[in-house]
């Protein structure tokens, strides 16, 4: 069976003056039907840009994105339209991504109108259904975004993504702006929706605790590249890339009896791409080879890949 989403050697570049920032620099992966793939990395590593490039919100420079067997990389707007329905996005800041002057009905109905789905009565029924489905009060449709709490706004964001009945939802930090008690509500909702509607997720997050709970498979991104990919159990049990190890060691455990050691790396993520391995300047185990030869993602175990000469 072909994958729902297949990304091949994708590159995204931002130009500012003469400088070119290679935000996504040769990324390949797949998302199977019904699978949740977690994408983790620190701010500036390119994870959000990757998500936006897949949705064609940002143009790609090279590579191919295949959705449901169809290459959507170079489609024109009109040809792209039917494919847009299949992949939708949920954003981190639900307030910033909702028009404050539109009622929830307008926000949701616009998507249906643009895609010419149903007559007025059918659309109304669909709106009522979706609002209940995401756990919003029945009278929400005629209210404005500012009348809702943060958690409820994220439910509106989810409703907007769901209303076109997509197969894949790209979730970009969907719970990062929410308080702990609300975060659990939204994660549970996403789990229910996935189970009931057979959704697939690309779940982008900097929060490794959330990804560990929520993903089936995890991709670790560093400076535009995937440096490790593994099943969720494997990654935490047996991380191979020094960056993954450092990330995992840095997350504070909520068990005070489990004291963590100092993070084994120094410095911070920069945008400078050095020759050889991009992580070598911060890596505690880097050798001369790392500073010259860029390691490629290679199998290191069953469904487990790492881009390190010594993994």
């Amino acid at each position, binding site marked *: 069976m072909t994958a729902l989403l297949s990304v091949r050697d994708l590159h995204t570049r931002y130009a500012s003056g003469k400088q070119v920032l290679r935000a996504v620099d040769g990324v390949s992966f797949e998302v199977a039907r019904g699978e*949740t793939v977690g994408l983790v990395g*620190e*701010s500036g590593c390119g994870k959000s840009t990757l998500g936006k490039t897949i949705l064609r919100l940002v143009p790609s420079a090279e590579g191919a994105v295949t959705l449901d067997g169809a290459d959507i990389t170079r489609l024109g707007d009109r040809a792209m339209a039917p494919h847009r329905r299949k992949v939708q996005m949920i954003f981190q800041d639900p307030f910033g991504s909702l028009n404050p002057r539109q009622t929830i009905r307008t926000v949701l109905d616009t998507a249906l109108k643009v895609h010419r789905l149903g007559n007025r009565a059918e659309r109304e029924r669909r709106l009522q259904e979706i609002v209940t489905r995401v756990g919003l009060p029945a009278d929400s449709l005629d209210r404005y975004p500012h009348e809702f*709490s*943060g*958690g*409820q706004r994220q439910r509106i964001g989810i409703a907007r993504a769901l209303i076109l009945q997509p197969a894949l939802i790209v979730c970009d930090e969907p719970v990062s702006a929410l*308080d*702990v*008690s*609300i*975060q*659990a*509500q939204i*994660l*549970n909702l996403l*789990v229910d929706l996935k189970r009931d509607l057979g959704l697939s997720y690309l779940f982008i997050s*900097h929060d*490794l*605790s*959330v990804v*560990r*709970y*929520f993903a089936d498979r995890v991709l670790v991104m560093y400076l535009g590249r995937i440096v490790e990919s593994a099943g*969720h*159990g494997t990654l*935490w049990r047996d991380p191979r890339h020094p960056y993954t190890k*450092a*990330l*995992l*060691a*840095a*997350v*504070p*455990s*909520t*068990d*005070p*009896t*489990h*004291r*963590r050691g*100092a*993070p084994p*790396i*120094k410095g*911070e*993520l*920069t945008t400078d791409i050095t020759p050889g391995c991009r992580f070598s300047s911060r890596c505690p185990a880097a050798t001369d080879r790392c500073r010259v030869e860029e390691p490629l993602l290679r199998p290191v175990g069953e469904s487990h890949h790492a881009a390190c000469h010594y993994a």
Partner: protein
Amino acid sequence: MSLLAVEGLSVHFPGHAAVREASFAIEPGETLALVGESGCGKSVTAFSVMRLLPANARVASGRILFDGKDLLAASPAAMRDIRGKQISLIQQEPMTSLNPVLSIGVQIVEVIRRHERISRKAARARAIELLDLVSIPDAHRRIDDHPHNLSGGMRQRVMIAMAVACGPKLLIADEPTTALDVTTQAQVLDLLDGLRHRLKMAVLLITHDLGVVAQWADRIAVMYAGRIVEQGGIAPFFADPLHPYSRGLLGARVDVDSDEHYLTDRLTEIPGSVGSAAAAAGCPFAPRCPIAVAECRRALPPLVAHGARAVACPRVGPPPSDGEVARRAGGVMTPSPAQTRALPHRNGEGSKA
């Protein structure tokens, strides 16, 4: 005598009470974590201690005793001598706390010379030492950098250097690492903890991150809708949280060391949101509380001490002895069937697998 004792503090904004009769104390040299969700009054509490509340806020009642003196009664001039010298503040976003048009050296020197009679040259030498102290490489060169030349983690280190420049007894760190990446967060909090021991200062660590609390604090005070609802040592808090809100928080968290996965485990939710609770009479948590009774909606429960711990909930008794802990796990608060994961004591069972 406690270094800082906040007693019955209430802070009102037009139309709502941000802090309601909050009491807590910080002992010399300890780190107290003040924990709660956005809007619960943590930052307002910190600004009250610094006497930096916005103009439309009013302290309605209470005392803030620092070294035995009531800061709320201090003159503006006396407060200016205290800020930066006795009590320092670090905020979440270092870029907005630093002046973008002045070099970091000038800004550190300014703090030192405000409080000490010292030449410009000597102050600059101190500033370089301070940058060294917070592990900024090449301090003698970086001192002339402007904030935009530095990364987020480096800027927060500069803020820390400024905050500890005059050897304060109390450092208030308001979400100091929330804007930072996780690897940088660990470096900055380790640095802060090292300085606390070296300089023998106390830290009021304001955060919403329970992992940060578990790893870097000695004691915790949990705030909900302007109220301190629980206080105590870190170990007993995480092993046996008393207040239903604390239990809910620990149940709702996802822990990086836990094997829980969405296919097998459901997260425990705290139903509703803070907004639905703030206006109600009685205990602010009652509308979301799984063990609330009619009485909870009538009167505001006071914070009652149980040994070294304190809790503002009449529905939970004094903390049990060690032997009792296991027995009580399912007793006091029985989760509804929808909450498949038991509220208390996830710590002891699943997370160390």
